[in-house]
């Protein structure tokens, strides 16, 4: 296998990595907000459930969670799963895992906003919903960008965990290529690492730009 073929194969599978990455963000960013609201629910059982959920998501490996989501429905519940279940299971596992972390980041961002902001809004007649979406949420977004950058970068690297249930994203492909006869061997892993590094460099750059875009005000 030539170097060029190897790069093309890695790049092709990097598209799978990219789709795990972007679908996870697309799902987990809003779901995290819903989880935060659940944590703050007036109904105690909802609060308990959310607490248990976050505790499990943070307390067990994502790799294991992915296996439970992938094998669980069939082996534990006897449900026949759809054909593309492998990929769906990866996305579901990533979304519910990252939503738990995002919810905690949102919580820290929201709880660091001074109570005076709520009081000023209340006296001015803002409803609870308007207070949250017009006053609190925009300030929360600014505050959570640095910790979110960390999480997003971790997510890029975590996509490689999908190989545990046989999803052929870039890392799985790199392993396959490296052990194949007459392959570039270890160079494959170096190139895979380069892919991750360059992509994360881009992520960090964009998040930094986003952070700067919020510099027009201070909290």
């Amino acid at each position, binding site marked *: 296998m030539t170097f060029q073929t190897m790069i093309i194969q890695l790049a092709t599978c990097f598209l799978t990595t990219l789709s795990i990455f972007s679908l996870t963000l697309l799902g987990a960013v809003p779901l995290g907000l819903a989880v935060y609201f659940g944590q703050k629910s007036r109904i105690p059982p909802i609060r308990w459930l959310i607490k248990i959920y976050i505790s499990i998501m943070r307390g067990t490996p994502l790799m294991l969670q992915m296996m439970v989501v992938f094998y669980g429905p069939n082996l534990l519940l006897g449900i026949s799963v759809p054909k593309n279940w492998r990929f769906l299971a990866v996305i579901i596992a990533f979304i519910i895992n990252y939503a738990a972390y995002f919810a905690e980041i949102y919580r820290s961002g929201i709880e660091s906003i001074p109570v005076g902001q709520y009081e000023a809004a209340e006296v001015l007649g803002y409803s609870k919903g308007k207070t949250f979406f*017009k006053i609190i949420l925009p300030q929360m977004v600014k505050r959570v960008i640095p910790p979110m950058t960390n999480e997003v970068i971790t997510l890029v690297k975590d996509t490689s965990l999908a190989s545990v249930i046989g999803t052929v994203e870039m890392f799985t492909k790199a392993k396959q290529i490296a052990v194949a006869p007459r392959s570039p061997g270890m160079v494959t892993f170096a190139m895979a690492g380069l892919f991750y590094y360059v992509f994360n460099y881009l992520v960090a750059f964009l998040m930094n730009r986003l952070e700067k875009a919020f510099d027009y*005000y*201070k909290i």
Partner: protein
Amino acid sequence: MAENILSLNNIRKSFGTLDVLKDISISVDQGEVVSIIGSSGSGKSTLLRCATFLETIDSGEILYLGQKAAETKNGKAEYARDLKQFRSCFGLVFQNFNLFPHYSVMKNLMDAPVSVMKRSPAEVREEAVRLLKKMGLESKANAYPCQLSGGQQQRVAIARALVMNPKILFFDEPTSALDPELTGEVLKVIKELAEEKMTMVIVTHEMAFARAVSDRVIFMDGGVIVEQGHPEMVLGNPSEERTRQFLRNYQRG
């Protein structure tokens, strides 16, 4: 007779076992400027927070323009179902300004009237510009709160309260978070409002200011009103020993 704007009747409020307000009654008429003085922990800020619904009272009555916002039934305070109409009666200026940092000065002034009161943006903008001019801040309309000094921020906060056209304006230690150099510009604005007969209740530690601006001074201590009356009387020649003691300590400090 001047119209009654605010009546607080027999207000009681406790935090746990600590009785902060013990049967307090205050009535404020149209155009009156009332200053509330007293040491920390006397309950004066809590009283303001009860009047503005930021704290709920345990018992008593709160009336705005003769309408009951809260009353006591079977020994428990009950609030009117829709407090929105009552909230539109008053404005509150906080010690820490509490401007919205992500909004420009203009947006701080315009957002509540437009998005909450559904007033026309053009009309609100006109009024906001007029108020900023009055506050000496017409050049700061597009600035963000972080770009302003404390005194400027507090004047924006006063304008933000005024653009809602309140019947009464509450001030909770409006200059306590400011450098001595900056208190003057805020006090000057409040003084101008007093000259325009704006109804105001001001919790303050600025005795000279209270004396100059108020129609009535209330001295609170330990959750009760110890003494109230004309500023010259309460501050110049108090009849209660506790008031004299407070003023002595104050002058010494």
